[in-house]
């Protein structure tokens, strides 16, 4: 126990004795965590919005001429339990079309209601794109169904874009983590070099490499945690400040909350990532120095 206390005491002492190096290391990790967090938040938010949009899109089952609308509605209710199912007669479809055309509804003058097919519309909220597509597959079994449209083509394209964004993001984050570790390792080398006399004397009196290295690792851990905590705090502050604006600008984002864009597991991952970068950077710098002396 007293060894652990000694290691912690030596690490905290060292942080106190080298405030400049500590500030640079903490600052570097802060920037890396903030950049990572901004990217991850943007991706998470976009995915959340995509999911919301997907849930708002109605699935329409267009019926073949002569198909019984009521039978189709009942079948749709069976096939999609928990959703809002509505039967749309050709007359109602035409009325809606007229309403949607507004002033230009005159172009429909002379068009008979039989032009439009009867349909069953299925609405649900909170469904993901994949769930909506799965629902569309089930709805093809509705008796008399000629076509099922979930209007999801553009959503599929958007999701593909996000999937690619995740891949590019993962590669960029890996690169960013590596660059940060190298940058922090070089900064910490200054700290190690500044304490070369202490290290030399410790080796002289019989200290093992692990005894010498442990406080440096703890220092790295504390610097990483401090940088990551600052980054997470900045992210939280930014998200809290930007969310009301986003809700006003995008009606679809009306229900978006902080955990939707910045979930707690992501915050914990950012903290753990910062700590890991601090430890790896410390291990690199002190390991290289110990091999030389």
């Amino acid at each position, binding site marked *: 126990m*007293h*060894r652990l206390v*000694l290691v912690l005491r030596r690490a905290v002492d060292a942080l106190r*004795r080298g405030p400049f190096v500590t500030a640079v290391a903490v600052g570097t990790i802060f920037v890396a965590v903030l950049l990572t967090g901004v990217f991850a938040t943007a991706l998470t938010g976009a995915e959340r919005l995509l999911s919301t949009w997907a849930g708002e899109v109605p699935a329409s089952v267009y019926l073949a001429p002569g198909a019984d609308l009521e039978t189709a509605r009942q079948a749709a209710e069976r096939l999609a339990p928990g959703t809002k199912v509505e039967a749309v007669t050709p007359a109602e479809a035409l009325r809606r079309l007229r309403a949607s055309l507004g002033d230009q509804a005159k172009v429909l003058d002379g068009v008979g209601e039989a032009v439009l097919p009867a349909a069953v519309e299925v609405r649900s909220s909170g469904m993901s794109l994949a769930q909506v597509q799965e629902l569309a597959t089930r709805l093809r079994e509705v008796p008399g169904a000629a076509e099922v449209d979930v209007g999801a083509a553009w959503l599929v394209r958007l999701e593909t874009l996000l999937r690619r964004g995740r891949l590019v993001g993962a590669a960029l984050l890996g690169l960013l983590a590596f660059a940060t570790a190298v940058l922090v390792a070089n900064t910490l080398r200054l700290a190690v070099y500044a304490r070369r*006399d*202490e290290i*030399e*004397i*410790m*080796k*002289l*009196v*019989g*200290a*093992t*490499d692990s*005894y010498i290295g442990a406080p440096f690792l703890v220092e790295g851990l504390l610097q990483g945690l401090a940088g990551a905590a600052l980054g997470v705090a900045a992210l939280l502050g930014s998200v809290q400040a930007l969310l009301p604006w986003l809700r006003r600008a995008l009606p679809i984002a009306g229900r978006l909350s902080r955990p939707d864009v910045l979930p707690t597991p992501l915050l914990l991952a950012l903290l753990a990532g910062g700590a890991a970068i601090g430890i790896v950077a410390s291990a690199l710098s002190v390991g290289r120095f110990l091999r030389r002396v």
Partner: protein
Amino acid sequence: MIQLFHVFKQYGAEAPALSDVSLEVRKGEFVFLTGPSGAGKSTLLKLVFCAEPASGGQILVFGRNVSRIRPSGIPYLRRNVGVVFQDFKLLPDRTVAENVAFPLEVRGQHPREVRRKVTSALRAVGLDHRMGKFPLALSGGEQQRAAVARALVGDPALLLADEPTGNLDLDRTVEVMQLLEGANARGTTVVVATHDRGLLARHKKRIIALENGRVVSDGDSVRRAAS
């Protein structure tokens, strides 16, 4: 305690720092290692406490061949060796007590035990009243006494001193030598590297003389010559 067999040490393409050195220091001995600057005294001490590897030959310390000790085993050998340097090698930002506590802390001794032994070691060198001071607040003689306390606090079987009185006046030299002789009287084997012929003349000990990396005499002839 220490045995060297045909030991060579060479740095790059320069002339050998040590050349075909064979000698033995027995347990409980007090030995002076002497010679002019560049004779190889410090190099020999560095080889004994594994600060550097030999280029050739065999070195046995406590009966162990140091060339066969793995790097991870070197710290454990050093815990039985106290080392004193001419420039003291005290950390200026640590108090005297903290400097002396180093060898005990690296062994993981309990803080209470560390405090007790540090106080005792500093009392033995007459510095217990200065334990809270920083090294730069001490005189040269006091700093060297603190360095001796650090070397002896772990009760080592072997004490190596590299020009321990090189920066001290005669009175302080006498004080430090008394401490080294006291440790030797308590059973510690002591090897002192010095080029101070006056020191050799005042202390009737075994003298090993080096010149250009070779042992040129071993015994008390140099002391007689000096006197």
